[in-house]
């Protein structure tokens, strides 16, 4: 009877030692070759010449533990074995070798099937299942490691796309009114996963400029004009700072009334020809930014205002009338 007590005591001591030192933490000789020896896996991931060889190593280690696994887990053993066989089959699609596998792939017998389950839980509650769990987890880690270069490639692609889109819409590209954004969204491929467009449509784009008419020398005049680019398109060149484009233009001023014509854009500056009436020659429309090009050392808007104020009585009339 006493011998039986001692025997029981020894069993309890061994059991407590095993549970006090989880196998995945290392330091327990019983588990140095365990499928879930993370230190070993980490070293293998770094040193393994190829993923198939690493999978082969995981498979060999797993099969050496299969004999320890309880029969009730046979279904899980088959899952893990099938997975490892698939991974090592050269006919398997390449992508399959990276697919993440999780504990959910397994059938748990009596363990609460919720999110708190860990390797520790499995080891504590169903030690016989731990090797199966471990095999899938190591495959998962190996697959993740092998997927890293692809992830890096994806990161570079997403970042490049983001930087281009930011340059287009927030920094260097021609600013768009909300309705222009909507038109571009419809006409261009602006899906977030697609490359950033190198072109842009103009639609009902209001602007201010100067209309230079020169029918005869004595009738030459320059008047401020509100214009609308009805529809047009620009193309970006090397970067979103440089573009050129054309648009259908309409304008209206106090002297000549409404007109229609074409405008040309080049790197933020634009000019166009507008026909106001059949009996008058076409006038030159100059965007205010093009005017400012020649006064780039000063505030263009302020200069333009001064210029307009000094121009002609008709201009002053327009301004005071508006007030």
């Amino acid at each position: 009877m006493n011998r039986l007590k001692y025997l029981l005591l020894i069993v309890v001591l061994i059991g407590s030692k095993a549970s006090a030192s989880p196998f995945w933490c290392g330091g327990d000789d019983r588990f140095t070759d365990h499928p879930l020896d993370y230190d070993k896996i980490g070293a293998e991931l770094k040193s393994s010449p190829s993923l198939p060889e690493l999978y082969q190593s995981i498979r060999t280690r797993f099969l050496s533990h299969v004999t320890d696994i309880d029969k009730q887990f046979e279904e899980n053993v088959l899952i893990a074995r099938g997975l490892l066989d698939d991974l090592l089959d050269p006919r398997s699609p390449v992508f399959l070798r990276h697919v993440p596998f999780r504990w959910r792939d397994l059938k748990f017998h009596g363990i609460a099937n919720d999110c708190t389950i860990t390797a520790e839980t499995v080891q504590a509650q169903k030690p016989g299942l731990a090797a199966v769990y471990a095999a899938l987890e190591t495959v998962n880690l190996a697959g993740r490691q092998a997927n890293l270069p692809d992830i890096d490639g994806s990161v570079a692609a997403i970042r490049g796309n983001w930087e281009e889109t930011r340059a287009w819409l927030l920094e260097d590209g021609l600013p768009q009114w909300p309705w222009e954004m909507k038109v571009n969204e419809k006409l261009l491929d602006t899906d977030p996963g697609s490359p950033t467009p190198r072109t842009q449509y103009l639609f009902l784009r209001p602007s201010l400029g100067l209309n230079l008419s020169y029918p005869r020398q004595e009738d030459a005049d320059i008047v401020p004009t509100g214009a609308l680019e009805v529809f047009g398109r620009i193309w970006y060149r090397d970067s979103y700072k440089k573009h050129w484009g054309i648009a259908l233009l309409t304008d209206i001023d106090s002297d000549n009334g409404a007109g229609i014509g074409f405008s040309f854009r080049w790197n933020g500056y634009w000019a166009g020809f507008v026909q106001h009436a059949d009996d008058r020659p076409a006038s030159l429309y100059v965007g205010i930014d093009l005017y400012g090009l020649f006064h780039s050392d000063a505030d263009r808007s302020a200069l333009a205002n001064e210029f307009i104020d000094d121009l002609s009585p008709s201009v002053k009339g327009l301004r005071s009338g508006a007030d």
Partner: protein
Amino acid sequence: MARNVLFLIHGIGNHGPGWSEKSQQVLSAEFERYMMHAGKNVSLSDSLEFVELPYNGIFVNIWKRWSELSTRLDLLDGQPQFLEQTVDLLGDASTSGSQIGNNRKVDYAGDALLYRSLGLVRRLVLLQIMSEMAGIIADRMASDIRTEFGVLGHSMGTAVAHDALHILGTTNWTQQSWDAGVSKTLTESEAALSSPSGNLRRAEKELLDGVEQKARFSGLSAGMFQFKSIFMVANTCRSLACESDPYRSIVRPRPHPGSHGIAGFADWFVNVSHVYDPVAQIRKLDTARLNDPPGSALDINVSHLYSDDVHALDHYLLNPKVHREVFGTMCPGSFGIAERDYANRRFDEQLEAEGNPDYFKRRGGDFSDTAVASRMREFTTKHFSDLLEKLV
């Protein structure tokens, strides 16, 4: 155990760096409570890293661009009044630096309106979120391959998270490797066709499968990469998400291997709603439709009242029903079965009888007065949201 990462995506409004500090404090304090109870000396920061993913700067910049455009038309007084007033109404970005300025009329509508109605603005938002998220994923995985990732979206941030995750997981970002993969598949299939024993039908099938699978599987696609969990707090996906129908997107739990269901992007999908939060109740997501395999899509409804702002993220996270899922999925090494049981007991009021100070009262803070809580119930959301639902 690796230090996992939880991405935080904010809702409507201005959110500078550190916007989630209060929520993080709530989580840290609650986590500490469980660790103390279990006799563990672990802090939340040991096992979980929070990464804020801001996007409201995009809206600020868009308003600023429009403001500049309208300013250019200001040379002739009186002409562009309509445009100016429109921009002023939507947000005077140039003076206040805020996307909605001080204009209360559109205080809560401007961002959502922009995001929902303009695909180019959405593109900016999503690419910024995806760019930062993917960069962190690559960096942390390179440091420790075991690192797991989770996403927590709040309010409008749920729609942003939904769209960003769907695009991230369904786009083939590495076109170059795709081309190489397709070429390889083609070569192999040609070889199979030309061999004497080659089975034509099988080879054709493999060819098609190979092309299709390769197109769907790039480094961060749902087949190659998985998030640990996705939390949608005060979910607005059904109202604001644009890139895919929430019931058909990959923002859902991963189905069983071999299942023919829609690919999922996470192990766990957790949808959290407050019964008195109108935002969470309008066009509420039916989580049951994502629940494959059963038990992996959780629908959590809370009703606690600790603050007048029941919509606030930190207020949601106070509830053990909510934070137990965050801890359980993102810190499984520390927050195990015992801690989960304790969280359940805290909420189930079993601790009340024991006189335990840890008992989670459903009412507290500013709403300890039950009369106030009762009045609030009368005004809340059920009728209001039903009405809005009909209008939508």
